[in-house]
């Protein structure tokens, strides 16, 4: 279970590719939304990539994650098709959810993506169910609930900590603490600084790591997921991270120091740090990373072009997929 074994070139390239894909996907959406091309609410994940990539590096398609309204990063890290996601966000018939879900409801059960979720705190109880299912069926699967610092005040989260602890469920709660619940700063919305401490009150271990550091997240998540798989029960993993954009696209962020996001981009960009460290350590050549950058830029270009060219859903789809049989 040492990280060393996971620092193969293949694994490092995969981690970088995931983070780069998320970053480019989100930066591009930011531009396209400004062009009024995207309907509805979109919440961007840029800045938090190391969390999704580090955690999901330990998961397979058989494992499940529940996500949040800020869910694009989790979906990409969990292996959802990028073009299908883009088309979904554009509301097209070729979207992963046929255009019926949109940004806040991207799911792909074949990839163990239980869905982005428009309800803050909606996911943790569902992940308890995933853990229960894995435990009853002795399947060896693990469930990971991503949630934010805002959701960590919801009763659903606290109830889920308790339920998972008493049943020793194979689950991990990953709190992405980006310092804001919507527009409200963490120092106002909760009286603890380290949300991981909440685990103490429920009898499971909790730990806080630097969520901008892929290696810190990957190591801690590896331990937590390993504990879950070995039958040792749930873990609360808090990743301190930063939201490069506002709560939603169009958020003027007047609640934020105007330099805060820029300062985070300059000093705590997970992609910049990753590149510097793997090349300094001689584990990867810069050229290999450059090649991924080019490839992903092209993928995102194609995704947008194909989404724009894709048909809208037929109106006959309005009332299909409500039930399996009715």
């Amino acid at each position, binding site marked *: 279970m040492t990280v060393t074994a996971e620092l193969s070139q293949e694994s490092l390239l995969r981690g970088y590719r995931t983070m780069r894909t998320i970053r480019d996907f989100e930066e591009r959406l930011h531009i396209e939304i400004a062009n009024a091309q995207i309907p509805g609410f979109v919440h961007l994940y840029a800045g938090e990539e190391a969390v999704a990539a580090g955690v999901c590096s330990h998961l397979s398609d058989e494992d499940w994650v529940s996500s949040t309204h800020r869910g694009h990063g989790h979906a990409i890290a969990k292996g959802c098709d990028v073009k299908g996601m883009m088309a979904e966000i554009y509301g097209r018939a070729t979207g992963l959810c046929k255009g019926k879900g949109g940004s806040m409801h991207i799911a792909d059960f074949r990839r163990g993506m239980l869905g982005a979720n428009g309800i803050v705190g909606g996911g943790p109880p569902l992940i308890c169910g995933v853990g229960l299912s894995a435990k009853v069926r002795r399947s060896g699967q693990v469930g990971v609930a991503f949630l934010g610092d805002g959701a960590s005040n919801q009763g659903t989260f606290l109830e889920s900590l308790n339920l998972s602890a008493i049943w020793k469920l194979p689950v991990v709660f990953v709190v992405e603490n980006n310092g804001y619940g919507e527009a409200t700063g963490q120092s106002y919305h909760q009286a603890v600084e380290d949300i991981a*401490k909440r685990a103490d009150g429920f009898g499971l271990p*909790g730990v*806080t*790591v630097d969520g901008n550091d892929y*290696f810190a997240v990957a190591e801690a998540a590896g331990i937590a997921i390993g504990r879950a798989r070995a039958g040792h029960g749930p873990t609360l993993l808090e990743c301190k991270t930063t939201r490069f954009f506002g709560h939603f696209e169009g958020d003027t962020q007047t609640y934020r120091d105007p330099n805060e996001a820029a300062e985070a981009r300059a000093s705590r960009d997970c992609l910049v740090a990753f590149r510097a460290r793997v090349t300094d350590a001689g584990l990867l050549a810069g050229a290999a990373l450059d090649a991924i950058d080019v490839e992903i830029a092209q993928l995102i270009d194609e995704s947008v072009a194909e989404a724009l060219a894709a048909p809208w859903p037929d109106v006959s789809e309005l009332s299909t997929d409500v039930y399996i049989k009715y």
Partner: protein
Amino acid sequence: MIQPSPEIVVGIVANAASGRDIRRLTTGASVFDNAEKGSMVARLMAGLGATGVGRVLMMPAGGGLAGTLIRRLDSRRDSLPYPELELLPWRPTETARDTDRAVRELLERGVAAIAVLGGDGTHRVVARGCGSTPLLALSTGTNNAFPELREATVAGLALGLVATGRGGPLALRREKLLEVSVNGGPRDVALVDVAASCQRFVGARAVWNAGDISELIVAFASPSAVGLSSIAGLIDPVGRYAPYGLHVRLGDPETAPMRVVVPLAPGLVVPVGVEWHRRLEPGGVAALGGGAGVIALDGERELELREGDRVSVKLVAGPLTIDVEQVMLQAAQLGVLRGPITSAVVAEEAQ
């Protein structure tokens, strides 16, 4: 009772980071929460106020810690002689950079001494910048070798006596320091131990797997310590103030010439193999074996190495720390604290 004098200023560095030790998952180590750290600072300040310290300069600390502290001070300020509290006026980044910056600014402001509340890691960062300013080293967790677990009120009294020039001749001790150089240039320091890990990245920081460690250099090593230094402590104990350190080469516990069972972390007792060990004399330099990896300082992975980097460790003189036991013993012998109000202060704070 001496009235606090605004001329007498001490610094406080309290690390608000807590629950960040991966050993909470792997071994069950525990740390104090920020509310308790805030309370510790308040108790410390009761001791400072009672001994005449008029002003405390403190590193800004995250909401929980500073918030608790300020609430506690507000509720008691009227009845007890607390020093004025001044938080350094910047927003913390919650990284070691805060500590570096705070120590620099405290020295510029001429503090008489610095109280440090934290673990080995926090003390290490303070030690690399504090020069000859004495430290009061207080532990805020169960996993530390350098700072002491001690009631903050008493520690505050001792610190106050030192700051007001009444600490006595035995008040200060000279610690040791391990200076780490990479490719000949000094890079960082450690107070307790330097370990070479085969991990490639700092990652979750703590060293929690004995199998990752190939080499260990300790400044001191007690056989009753917990942590990496216990490996040295259990094969050749090195007193905290003994004039040498120890260099240990580790190996596979199955094949190494010596095998020792050690408490590597709270709740974690494991066998380790020892290839050889030798003493490191003052000023002596030990080269760590080649190969890229990570250097852990005082139990936390800190330095990521590049292929071919050469790492050497030198044992040098370290910071001065306050010997609370000696200061209080002398205070008792000389009757420094004999007076009407001091015992009341202590009694109230204990409640």
